[in-house]
């Protein structure tokens, strides 16, 4: 991710749209306040280069320009675009997964296995909390070598159990983070 940001950065630096010099000039002798924006480099970012056309005559230019405040600003639109799109896509994926977990999966499970499966899995959760099974868990983690699919399944199952445990302690028992 970092690499891509840097790549974006260098790519975007070339983009002249991402640099601006913004001069804000306050009202002066009947002339309305104005905001000027120009694509100029940092060293050219002053009133003389940016304010065009100059609203005052030659002798007043200096007085007018003294009041103007020029700020050089740069951004990287590529980074912004990349960030927002990435953020939205992750958010979207998470939402889809959330909908799947909360709505679809229980429905599918109920249709496929009936209620017995659900009850059994609840039993497993409790059974794992006893002292020796706990040790069993720790040991089996380092020694069993199941195939890939089992592993994924197992990891997912474990993650779910963790989240359930977290949910219980945060929302039901209120022992942490209240």
């Amino acid at each position, binding site marked *: 991710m*970092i690499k891509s*940001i840097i790549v974006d*950065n260098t790519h975007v630096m070339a983009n002249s*749209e991402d640099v*601006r010099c913004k001069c804000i000039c*306050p*009202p*002066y*002798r009947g002339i309305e*306040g*104005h*905001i*000027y924006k120009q694509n100029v480099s940092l060293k050219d970012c002053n009133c003389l280069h940016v304010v065009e056309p100059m609203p005052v005559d030659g002798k007043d230019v200096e007085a007018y320009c003294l*009041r103007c405040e020029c700020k050089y*600003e*740069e*951004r*990287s639109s590529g*980074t*912004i*675009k990349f*960030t*927002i*799109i*990435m*953020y939205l896509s*992750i*958010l979207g994926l*998470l*939402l889809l997964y*959330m909908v799947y*977990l*909360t709505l679809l999966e229980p429905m599918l499970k109920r249709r496929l296995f009936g209620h017995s499966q659900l009850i059994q899995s609840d039993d497993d959760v*409790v059974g794992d*909390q*006893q*002292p*020796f*099974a*706990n*040790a*069993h868990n*720790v*040991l089996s983690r*380092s*020694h069993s070598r199941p195939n890939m699919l089992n592993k994924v399944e197992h990891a997912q199952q474990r993650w779910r159990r*963790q*989240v359930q*445990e*977290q*949910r*219980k*302690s*945060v*929302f039901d028992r*209120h*022992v*942490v*983070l*209240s």
Partner: protein
Amino acid sequence: MESEQLYHRGYCRNSYNSIASASSDEELLDGAGVIMDFHTTEDDNLLDGDAASPGSNYAMSNGGGAASSTTHLLDFLEEPIPGVGTYDDFHTIDWVREKCKDRERHRKVNSKKKESAWEFTKSLYDAWSGWLVVTLTGLASGALAGLIDIAADWMNDLKEGVCLSAMWFNHEQCCWTSNETTFAERDKCPQWKSWAELILGQAEGPGSYIMNYFMYIYWALSFAFLAVCLVKVFAPYACGSGIPEIKTILSGFIIRGYLGKWTLMIKTITLVLAVASGLSLGKEGPLVHVACCCGNIFSYLFPKYSKNEAKKREVLSAASAAGVSVAFGAPIGGVLFSLEEVSYYFPLKTLWRSFFAALVAAFVLRSINPFGNSRLVLFYVEYHTPWYLFELIPFILLGVFGGLWGAFFIRANIAWCRRRKSTRFGKYPVLEVILVAAITAVVAFPNPYTRQNTSELIKELFTDCGPLETSQLCKYRSQMNGSKAFTDDPNQPAEPGVYSAMWQLCLALIFKIIMTIFTFGLKVPSGLFIPSMAIGAIAGRIVGIAVEQLAYYHHDWFLFKEWCEVGADCITPGLYAMVGAAACLGGVTRMTVSLVVIVFELTGGLEYIVPLMAAVMTSKWVGDAFGREGIYEAHIRLNGYPFLDAKEEFTHTTLAREVMRPRRNDPPLAVLTQDDLTVEELQSVINETSYNGFPVIVSKESQRLVGFALRRDITIAIENARRKQEGILLNSRVYFTQHAPSLPADSPRPLKLRSILDMSPFTVTDHTPMEIVVDIFRKLGLRQCLVTHNGIVLGIITKKNILEHLEELKQHTEPLATSWYYHKKRHPPSHGANGKPRSRVHHVQLIRSFQDGWGRGGEGSDEEDEEEEVVCLLNGSNL
């Protein structure tokens, strides 16, 4: 948590059966055969092992998969058992043990360095891993902070409208190149469409106002709803600010999953949603949590850190510095924050690494440039105007306000959180978030100061009124007639614009105060820094404008006469806002030095140190007068985390004897004897008690201390032996000594558990004052400490006993809700699973007189050959 469930009696019985059924009679015979070999060869092997480099155990660690031959069997006897030396969830780590482990590991790596080039590379990697991990943490937290900043800005503007030409730009970026040149149109550009324009087709009028109002509430509610749903479904630990928990974790507590991948992802994603939903919360506190998650995840790449909880906490200290560094653009402030507020153990090495991590993180964020102002924070300001001595009075008044606000906020918020914790009201977290978000959105929209992003509000309040400012706050009379030549003078009579701004600010202040109390503690990621600063900034700005007007109308007062001439620029309301922000933050968090440095880095001017320090110190004093703890300590106490605050002083005169367990009327201390327990007896001790560790004594007769064995290690070791060593039966003898006890010939093979025995447990005598014990616990980070009398174990003091004791002594102040260590069964229920009273025959029944401090005199000369053994803490546990 887990330990609460450890006591479902019904299941304990099952585990017996499983162990019993696993070993059959055939194995018994095999096992007996092995024992003979075992006896003859063990000593040599041990001697060899000791004589060789200390690294010999390490090399064997991948050995004993198949225990077919005798040599293999011996190998894995000395091989570290996987999982030993790790901790259960919600347990406290033992800093001393962890540091010992690290030294041992370091010695091993060093001694192997010269063996081969590969080993040398490994040692180099090991030496550099500390710097590598903080670099990676800094990079990741900087990048994530950039992501959060950009996405939160965009989402926040999404409540008002959308950029048609490029969907991913926020309002400011959308109008980047537009040519609206006059002041009146500066915020209007054709690409940016408000929702009313898009839906109704008109930008002005009451219809569009209502439409915008409606869309604002709609987006706020949907963001808040999404945030709380994601938190609830994927990572409940991602809610809250996270700083109290990180403080507790850094002090040596284990909360599994609190700094994990899912927590990181969900916290990052939902933080953006929560900030954008307009709730009165900030992203600064959660950023510390995000950075700590990064630190924890990266520490898994380096065995030095992943396997040692104490070392991991050094990385986390550095990570929290990086978090504050990106939150405020203040690397030094971040390091000081880590030192002053969150860290527990902060050696110089960590200081350097924290600084490095903070710099890397700040640099990454700076190159992402999320705000387009080449700064790390939105509300960066630069003042050049001086301040005058007289102004210290309003600054100190602001400090008083900050202290009062802090004390009030802590009281009110804790009361509300306790209500949430203890009553049924806490059962509806989603509903609560929705409700608070709805109220916030409905009330916030009509007031321009609450409608905008809180960071932007702070920026506006901090910014001084120049000739270029268009905000309501700067609508002074002179600026309206532009023909006047001297428009630079900000000390002008206020005009209706400023007065209406004052009203709005006052309303915003009240609104923020009320909403922040109810928002902090919601089940979404919510920080406290920004709302506190906003409240302080509003109050400060109001005071600043008041003083300014006072100086304008009464410039002939002796106070103003000397330095505030007519037309001179003598009062800077923005500075007052900044001082007020610092004071309020100081009142809430009770930070001093780090806060001043953070604000100093925000302004980049040394000259405001004195006003800031005056206000912050005043607010701390005033706040401390109402209650000594800051919001984070208050939340730690509310949740009952085992956190031993190093700032508090212990001034009571109790003795170790009065605090230790067992107490007078309790059942005697559960202890293990070093060589005459069987596996079955050991298991029953473990199943029938809930203690997390057991002192090991010489024998029932002598009761002298040998060492300390942790419950988790014992269970793991027994389970491991049951799987891998043949011939371990329920009636096998368990021994903790160097040599197996002499057994009858027909008995099954004994089980050696010496490798899990902590041979150097910390002990104090029963007459040690608690003052010293508390100091030992704080400074060394102990988990437990044994109490002895004449070398005989009397009892044990754990960190939680000390916390309970402190709480008891504090009772006269204010009783807090029962903390969780009251929920845990410290004393095991006196009835077993079958309802019968439990037998305690396997425990050594300590004679009552011991606990009363009466020694039993010369206890006999059972020392055996203990002295000649090399005392090696946790020998062989490389994990």
